[in-house]
């Protein structure tokens, strides 16, 4: 069975410092990997995805994520955090294949708190 783990319920970081949100997964094959962000009382917004190619993926709002196949990880990073980055971040994984539309699995989410 596939699974997604976000080991930290909350990450606290000072504004201007680097931000890392961790994600590891257990899915057979080479899955699609995603990061979404949820601001209070809002729906999820797509940040970035890994499909193939370069292990470092760049996304919206200055975020990037590094795919590590050997460690089955897809950590989200931002070099310099902003207070406005405070939100709930979800990692998600989906197996490849045209029969896997209903198999996007989300992690439990990591709350990011950026203090001024």
């Amino acid at each position, binding site marked *: 069975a596939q699974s*997604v783990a976000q080991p930290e*319920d909350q990450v606290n970081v000072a504004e201007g410092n680097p931000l890392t949100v961790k994600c590891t997964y257990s899915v057979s094959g080479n899955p*699609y990997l*995603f990061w*979404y962000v949820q601001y209070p*009382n*809002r*729906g*999820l*917004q*797509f940040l970035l*995805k890994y*499909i193939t190619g370069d292990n470092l993926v760049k996304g919206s709002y200055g975020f990037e994520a590094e795919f590590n196949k050997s460690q089955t990880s897809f950590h989200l990073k931002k070099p310099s955090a902003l207070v406005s980055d405070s939100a709930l971040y*979800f990692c998600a994984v*989906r197996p490849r294949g*045209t029969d896997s*539309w*209903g198999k*996007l699995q*989300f*992690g*439990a*989410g990591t709350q990011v708190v950026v203090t001024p």
Partner: protein
Amino acid sequence: NAGVTQTPKFRVLKTGQSMTLLCAQDMNHEYMYWYRQDPGMGLRLIHYSVGEGTTAKGEVPDGYNVSRLKKQNFLLGLESAAPSQTSVYFCASSPGVGQGEETQYFGPGTRLLVL
């Protein structure tokens, strides 16, 4: 271009009542999904649709029904609401195969409280 919209934004039901949540998308997406979000559990898929007139069960389908009579709409029904269905419900859609179908776009959510 409104993207994915959901109606209503918030609803309170009594146990045993029924209701329908409406999701609409104006991006001509083939695939649509209903999720529920509960604290500490991420999002869990209830039902999904790969095209007009087709639906399939997700991870937590019990107590819910869906219909996709038109490509742009995906309805989620609760026939007899239970307190365990108190949650935030999100609709999502994604393009067809070869058009970026792997990326889902989410609506703003519907908060449902069942007393």
